[in-house]
């Protein structure tokens, strides 16, 4: 008897993927509300900055700076959301592979999961954990993307 016959793996994978999906949807609507508020503050700051009264204009510049800091920080939610979507999709791929009458080879499955990644540190972590690269999983995985964050390159 195979392990998947004794453990209800496909429904467990489906359940976990669904829970992630619910969490993503719920977080997304709240983040949209929050980003709307921050955008309103940025607009207010810009309007105040253009005021002829210098005291109001200075206050506006401070509001704008704070709104910009908030906008930068809030973008990490976008990254978190992407990472969670990739985990959810990987669980879906594993579910489909287990449920398929002719399951794909592990190489095909892993390649499909890796191809979904959009961040260099996701690929690096995948390679370290699966033994294609040396290094501890937590040691260097974030460093490349960390260094690239916010970088602007004009061609």
């Amino acid at each position: 008897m195979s392990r998947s016959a004794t453990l209800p793996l496909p429904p467990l994978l489906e359940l976990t993927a669904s829970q992630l999906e619910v969490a993503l949807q719920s977080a997304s609507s709240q983040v949209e509300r929050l980003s709307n508020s921050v955008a309103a503050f940025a607009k207010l700051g810009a309007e105040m900055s253009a005021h002829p009264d210098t005291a109001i204009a200075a206050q506006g510049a401070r509001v704008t700076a704070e709104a910009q800091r908030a906008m930068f920080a809030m973008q990490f939610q976008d990254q978190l959301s992407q990472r969670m979507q990739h985990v959810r999709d990987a669980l879906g791929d594993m579910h489909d592979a287990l449920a398929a009458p002719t399951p794909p080879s592990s190489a095909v499955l892993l390649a499909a999961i890796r191809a979904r990644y959009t961040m260099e540190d996701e690929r690096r972590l995948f390679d370290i954990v699966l033994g294609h690269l040396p290094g501890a999983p937590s040691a260097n995985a974030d460093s490349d993307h960390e260094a690239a964050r916010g970088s602007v390159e004009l061609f």
Partner: protein
Amino acid sequence: MRTILTVDDSTSMRQMVRATLQSAGYGVVEAADGQEALDFARTTKVDLVISDVNMPRMDGIKLVSELRALPNYRLTPLLLLTTESSQEKKLEGKRAGATGWIVKPFNPSQLINTLNRLFTTP
């Protein structure tokens, strides 16, 4: 007023790009994916495009190459704003005709400086 088309499938990212650009006096139009952006660009000329890379229906790199094929967009600055930081993807964007590559999260004041620079460079 210069108008910028921002393309991202994340509503909150579009809101943040919009707020940043509007606070600097730019007009903003939005699209949720590459196909929607291309459909818009076929009928309307904007001064600059900022696009995400990974999106449903049409990704940002394909959008750049499609826009470059439109006579109105041959010289328009096209920026890709993405979580992707791999050299391979960057090169793909450059080959497609992108003007630049910005890795998320973007710094609002740096983004404005970049746009101002692009608009003042002949």
